[in-house]
């Protein structure tokens, strides 16, 4: 199935794009996708510290199941305000 990935701020610059679509195996969970992304984008390694993930616009735990077409965002340390 396909999921939509969003990148922001320092992570967007490291990956070199703001978004992409990725194929993941049926039944994949967030942690599986995270491993796949680290292989695909070695530059992500420098940004592991403090990185969080959101699934469908909510912070999500590693065991969160992914669904067809869902949006997954990589959330480096935030600094609004």
């Amino acid at each position, binding site marked *: 199935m396909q999921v939509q990935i*969003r990148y*922001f*701020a*320092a992570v*967007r*610059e490291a990956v070199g794009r703001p978004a992409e679509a990725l194929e993941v195996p049926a039944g994949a969970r*967030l*942690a599986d996708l*995270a491993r796949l992304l680290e292989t695909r984008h070695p530059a992500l390694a*420098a*940004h*592991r*510290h*403090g*990185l*969080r*993930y*959101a699934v469908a*616009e*909510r*912070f*999500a*735990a*590693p065991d969160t199941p992914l669904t067809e077409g869902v949006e997954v*965002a990589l*959330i*480096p*340390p*935030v*600094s*609004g*305000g």
Partner: protein
Amino acid sequence: MVLLTRSPIDAEALRRAVAGPANGAVVLFFGDAREATAGRRVLELVYEAYEGMALAALRALGEELRARHGLSAVACTHRLGRVPVGESAMVLAVSAPHREAALAAVGEFVRRLKQEVPIWKQERFEDGAVWVGSASDPQAAQDPAHATRAEPVSGPGGRT
């Protein structure tokens, strides 16, 4: 009312959004772009947001604080894109029957915004730029305020 905008923030509109004759206290908080950070001259700030999630998070935070602190209303606008030094990056308006609740809520809103809401600040200097709190931020390694944000990859994340 929560809003993201690429124009200067209309603070008077926020003041009006929380107005009402039951309010004894209204507090406006302006988070402004400073000319220097850690002694280094800042030319301008640039903000980026995960817009849908940021709006939802700001709305949920405002509603939680409104209910818990007995506020009358909460309104917040955060600016995106370039913010020149001296202009406001965010403005928060809180109204309440009594001032203690309004002041406590302002402090908590801003503190949690800086932890939970997917908005990012880039500081632009004469010789480069840095995303605050990122791997390339020289402050992030030392500043305890940044260190508290650190978590393992794919950790369960915010909303504490």
